[in-house]
């Protein structure tokens, strides 16, 4: 990497003392990136941008929001009706949460498909899992703030999960609530934490990027960059590609914001919270539905809670559960099939989570939960051992030259 000499004297003065310009040049401009990344690699940076959008809109919402049980609902409606462009800010924030999860889930499944978690990127992957966990906590608490029926009852159901912990469970729940039911202290602390956690996510994203830049991006063929012929500088190639991806994401996100802003929401949340009236079906937001299905699949409450948290935490172990030495599913004919089965399984879990636990939903939910864990604990190690991967190309550059037509089709 060539060390640039800055011609502008002010830039040179600053850079000598605090080398921000050199840093930016190395990490954002010259940063060598595999030349064969496809569009699935866009979703990491998209998720990062959505995080910034969420923080920006959230700061403005907090200026007008009142975290009190008797005022919260009305203050949100005031934002919708009387604050200038308040409806726009709130709808971006509301739909932004869904799109944050869409981006992150696509990013996650991309990692699973292309084996991005394998050495030396295990920590990068684990930090990613921590980001998802923190996002879920943040999103859950944010959903409580408008103090609608689903806010209240969702909060009641989820916080009650901790009562499954033996002996101290009930005390922990009271401690979380700050009282003996979900009430004003709960709302206040959720607001405080909902403002704090995004900055923790931001710090985790920084670590995620740090770990990423230590060994650079993986890529669709899953072999390392072996020289300058395999890489291209991040700018302008990936800046422009990310900019185009951002345009597409904004088209879809703002399409929902302007024309179907409540598509991802539950109508019940436009009814003010009422501790005396329980909604017929309490459902979390769509992005938590698969985990909700796992929770309900297991008849024992404590085991259900363990399974639910375990279903996320098991991702931490994926770099070691997957025993294959080949990263990309492109060269793993058997794993590739199981990947799609697993994706389908997650969608089935989401579908089951959205429905009341009655009739065949119970059986389907239990089978899908079984398969979820079976995939990680049995399929991943076994397929890694038994599968015969297809031969890998000699280099990224060779694979690009050989599969030009295919590459375009794959993106």
């Amino acid at each position: 990497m060539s060390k640039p000499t800055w011609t502008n004297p002010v830039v040179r003065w600053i850079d000598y003392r605090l080398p921000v310009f050199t840093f930016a040049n190395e990490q954002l401009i010259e940063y060598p990136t595999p030349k064969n990344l496809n569009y699935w690699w866009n979703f990491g940076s998209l998720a990062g941008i959505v995080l910034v959008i969420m923080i920006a809109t959230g700061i403005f919402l907090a200026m007008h929001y009142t975290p009190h049980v008797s005022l919260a609902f009305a203050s949100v409606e005031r934002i919708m009706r009387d604050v200038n462009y308040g409806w726009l800010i709130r709808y971006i924030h509301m739909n932004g949460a869904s799109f944050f999860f869409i981006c992150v889930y696509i990013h996650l499944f991309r990692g699973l498909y292309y084996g991005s978690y394998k050495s030396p990127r295990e920590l990068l992957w684990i930090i990613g899992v921590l980001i998802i966990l923190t996002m879920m906590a943040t999103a859950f608490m944010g959903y409580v703030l408008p103090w609608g029926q689903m806010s209240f009852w969702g909060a009641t159901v989820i916080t009650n999960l901790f009562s499954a912990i033996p002996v101290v469970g009930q005390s922990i729940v009271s401690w979380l609530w700050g009282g003996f039911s979900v009430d004003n202290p709960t709302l206040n602390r959720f607001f405080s934490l909902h403002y704090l956690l995004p900055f923790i996510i931001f710090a985790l994203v920084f670590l995620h990027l740090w770990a990423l830049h230590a060994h650079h991006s993986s890529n669709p063929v899953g072999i390392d960059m072996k020289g300058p012929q395999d890489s291209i500088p991040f700018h302008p190639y990936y800046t422009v590609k990310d900019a185009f991806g951002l345009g597409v994401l904004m088209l879809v996100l703002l399409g929902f914001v302007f024309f179907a802003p409540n598509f991802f929401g539950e109508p019940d949340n436009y009814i003010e919270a009422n501790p005396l009236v329980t909604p017929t079906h309490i459902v979390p937001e769509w992005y938590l539905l698969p985990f909700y299905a796992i929770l309900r699949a297991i008849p024992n409450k404590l085991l259900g809670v363990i399974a639910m948290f375990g279903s996320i935490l098991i991702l931490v172990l994926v770099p070691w559960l997957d025993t294959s030495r080949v990263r990309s599913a492109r060269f793993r004919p058997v794993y590739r099939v199981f990947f799609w089965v697993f994706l389908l399984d997650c969608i089935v879990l989401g579908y089951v989570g959205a429905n009341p636990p009655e009739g065949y939903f119970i059986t389907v939910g239990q089978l899908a939960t079984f398969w979820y864990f079976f995939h990680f604990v049995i399929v991943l190690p076994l397929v890694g051992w038994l599968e015969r991967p297809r031969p890998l190309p000699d280099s990224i550059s060779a694979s690009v030259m050989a599969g030009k037509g295919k590459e375009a089709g794959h993106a």
Partner: protein
Amino acid sequence: MHKALLAALLAVAFFVPQSSSRAAEGPALPAQAWSFKGAFGTYDRAAVRRGLQVYREVCAACHSLNLVAFRHLGDVGFQEAEIKAVAEAYKVKDGPDDAGDMFERAGRPSDYFPAPFANTKAARASNGGALPPDLSLMTKARKQGPDYVYALLTGFKAPPAGFSLMAGMNYNEHFPGRQIAMAPPLAEGALTFADGTQSSVSQMARDVTTFLSWTAEPEMEARKRLGVKVLLFLLVLTGLLYALKRAIWQKLH
């Protein structure tokens, strides 16, 4: 092939939970042709006016409209003088005055629609124990909101043979549980529309639903107007970015 498969899976993932999260209760809601439907839909101004009249002369006897101020009517074409006239028809409790007493005065545009009852207990006491819900957000707070409100208002029927209706309840196949404490609120010719429109039950239901859709989403017209501009801009910008991406990457191939 992967692309198509994935697109299909994503489509399933995002659209299925929405449609399935409430098990069907009662017959499906017939979709009505609302003026405010679609990307360019607006609130039919005449219907909003008639709907306000239906709310004031019928619904307001029991239902509050707490989130709506008289001044908001300006967004749907009411002139300042008209808003003043609507507001002045209401008595609003104000105070305390300099002597420390509460007093009543005529409503002002900045006031909110006064609720018919002082509190929920009073509302229940006057309605056989049932609480008439606030209507400000009603069409947003139900699945297929406007269709639901219309179906409910026009869906009162004699209960089928063998259906045991509790005392003081009315049969309505669109209400969860099929019995509702509200008596059929609309009757043929119950009011005389200021613009001479025939006041049939379906006409009144349609108009008040339009009015309540506006109270639920007063920002809708501004939102759609801005949305068309934003999406057109983004479409051009994204197209240009794609061309730029192609041009820059061309050098590599």
